[in-house]
């Protein structure tokens, strides 16, 4: 995977002395560096610029307000898993055709919150308030968790910070192979490195600047050897000619290099997007065909494949996962209805809180020593989000 080229680093003077800023400068010696007193007006004008492929600005600034938020998920029609996100970086250089960020963050500025200590202290303080729950927190909601890691080395900060926190797993979700910074870290088993995966034919057509499947597989081997837990996200599954064979083949390849015992979780989800996104995708990626598939408006208003097709795809992937990865894998659906769970897996979580508890129970059983005691359902049913506000989209 090619390194995203950073052409300009704009530093808000409030964070000029932060380590993260120094690293961005050091690791991008050719980038123009501008230090400014950032105002709302300046920020607005930066976000209004037309995005161009050749230009990538990094804005290093200070996060105000809350850092940890609930995953935006979807409405209660579909099951969600009570995941939490830290949006330290907003914008992604990988440019996947189907990504919602194309719609929300279609500007040339990548915002990075550089006041790391404040961000992480907030996480620590918040999860401490519900010490009986076991949380999952990820950084890959508004960006790829590792795409900028060669510049930011942010993984060093977060992985070692989370290593000492007793009731949380950090998830770094990526389509990259930028794992060099991870290999020597003392993670204490508190970090899951997870990959969004698709067959190479989809990577070629739709995941334009992502690592190839082969590069990702090699990265998985190294990360597994370094003792990390692994996650897989078959999300989005994309309908394409040959999908019935390509997805099982992909799963076979994954389990040739990853031991199922090290897999913390696997998600399955299919293409979904707000209807307004279709024109943007057609405009930006005229060669992509994913928008021409059989798509209907789901009950949450998002475009999806029709249920009979989704079920067909889910059953194929689920059965292959069980065949190659075994019966102990923790497999869940992202933003799908109870009916889909039942028709694919034969059961469904009773509620989002129940699903959250099932995650914890699975982790407790699979990774002895990760938790001090067995998770109790009541702690999840009575749990409250770390912050009620859902993840925000900067620039809007």
């Amino acid at each position: 995977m090619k390194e995203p080229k950073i052409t300009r680093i704009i530093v808000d003077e409030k964070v000029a002395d932060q380590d993260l800023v120094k690293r961005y400068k050091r690791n991008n010696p050719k980038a123009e560096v501008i230090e400014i007193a950032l105002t709302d007006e300046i920020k607005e004008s930066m976000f209004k610029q037309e995005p161009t492929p050749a230009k990538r600005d990094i804005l290093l600034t200070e996060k105000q307000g809350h850092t940890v938020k609930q995953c935006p998920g979807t409405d209660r029609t579909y099951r969600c898993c009570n995941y939490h996100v830290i949006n330290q970086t907003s914008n992604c250089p990988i440019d996947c055709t189907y990504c919602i960020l194309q719609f929300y963050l279609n500007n040339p500025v990548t915002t990075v919150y550089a006041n790391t200590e404040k961000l992480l202290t907030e996480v620590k303080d918040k999860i401490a308030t519900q010490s009986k729950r076991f949380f999952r927190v990820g950084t890959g909601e508004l960006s790829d968790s590792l795409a900028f890691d060669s510049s930011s080395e942010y993984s060093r900060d977060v992985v070692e910070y989370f290593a000492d926190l007793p009731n949380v797993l950090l998830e770094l979700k990526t389509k990259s192979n930028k794992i060099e910074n991870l290999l020597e870290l003392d993670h204490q088993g508190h970090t899951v490195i997870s990959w969004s995966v698709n067959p190479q034919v989809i990577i070629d057509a739709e995941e334009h600047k992502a690592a190839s499947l082969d590069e990702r597989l090699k990265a998985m081997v190294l990360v597994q050897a370094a003792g990390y837990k692994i996650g897989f996200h078959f999300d989005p599954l994309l309908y394409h000619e040959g999908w019935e064979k390509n997805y099982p083949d992909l799963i076979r390849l994954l389990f040739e290099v990853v031991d199922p015992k090290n897999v913390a979780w696997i998600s399955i989800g299919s293409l979904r997007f707000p209807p307004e996104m279709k024109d943007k995708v057609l405009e930006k990626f005229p060669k992509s065909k994913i928008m021409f598939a059989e798509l209907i408006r789901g009950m949450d208003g998002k475009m999806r494949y029709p249920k009979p097709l989704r079920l067909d795809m889910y059953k194929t992937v689920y059965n292959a996962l069980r065949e190659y990865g075994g019966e102990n894998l923790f497999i869940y659906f992202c933003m799908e209805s109870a009916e889909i769970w039942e028709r694919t897996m034969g059961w469904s979580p009773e509620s989002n809180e129940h699903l959250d508890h099932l995650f914890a129970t699975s982790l407790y059983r699979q990774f002895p020593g990760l938790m001090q005691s067995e998770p109790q359902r009541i702690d999840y049913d009575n749990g409250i989000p770390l912050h009620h506000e859902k993840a925000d989209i900067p620039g809007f």
Partner: protein
Amino acid sequence: MKISVKELTTVGPAIHSSFTPLPFKREMDRGSGLIKPILAYQTSSCIKIVGNTHVFLAAQAAGKPTVPAYLIEASESTLELLELIIEYYHPMSLMDKALLTRAALDLGVPRPTLAEKILPLLDVAPREKLIDQILFLLKLPPELQVFILEKDLSLKRALIFQRAENHLDWVTRFIENLRIGINMTAEIIQNIWEMAERDDTDFKSKAQELELWEMADTVFEDNRIAVMEIRKKINAARYPTLTQAGEDLASELASAELPPNVKVKWDPQFEQQGLDISFHAKNEDELEAVLEKLSSNKFKDLFKKI
């Protein structure tokens, strides 16, 4: 800028200007009962008519010696003149916006300036690539240009014709023959185009494959039946899984042999789980007959499908 109201002689002023084609649909002026003065611009060598040229020509043809005019005696820039003309024609139709964009380019306004300064005055986003999209409207056959005007289409809606750029005559015949509105037109064009892209074929081949091509020239006694037929053809090709699922369910429902007084409906998109069942029983016997059929395994098996 200095503007005065004058009676211009119809003998003297030169009429040639880039704005001669404006407004696109001149008969629209007649409805108001009042004809506003023409707009004229004093250059160093002559007077140019820049607004309602057709009124000036009509006065000339009728032998009227003068015509009332707003005369722009001085203008600082082409942009200022354009702004005034936009104001003069306010509210502008989409076709007039296209004509004005063409005129601005003819006058040498650079594209970035046109995008940044003029497009917002036309209620169009200040993006350069929208200039080409607006100009595309001027390539349309006159019938489609009138269609855009009569249906008061937005730019985005009118650009649906780009999808069938090489077959605009067919589109014109199709609309006229089937007497369909813009929503149906857009739905048909978009679907043919998407399926052509999906299957790596061209627009015409896909329309022919769907048996829609010849419908532009087929006589229909009732265009509503034709529209239903079009929808059916498009849905079958566009949503093969859903179509098959619907047919399978209907077939299984038929084999359950429910009494005719039982109506069964389902979400045609299959998102909502289950069936809507309604019936009217006029006595206990009918009720029991219905319940017996609804309790059969054949009927219950339907729930595995939706």
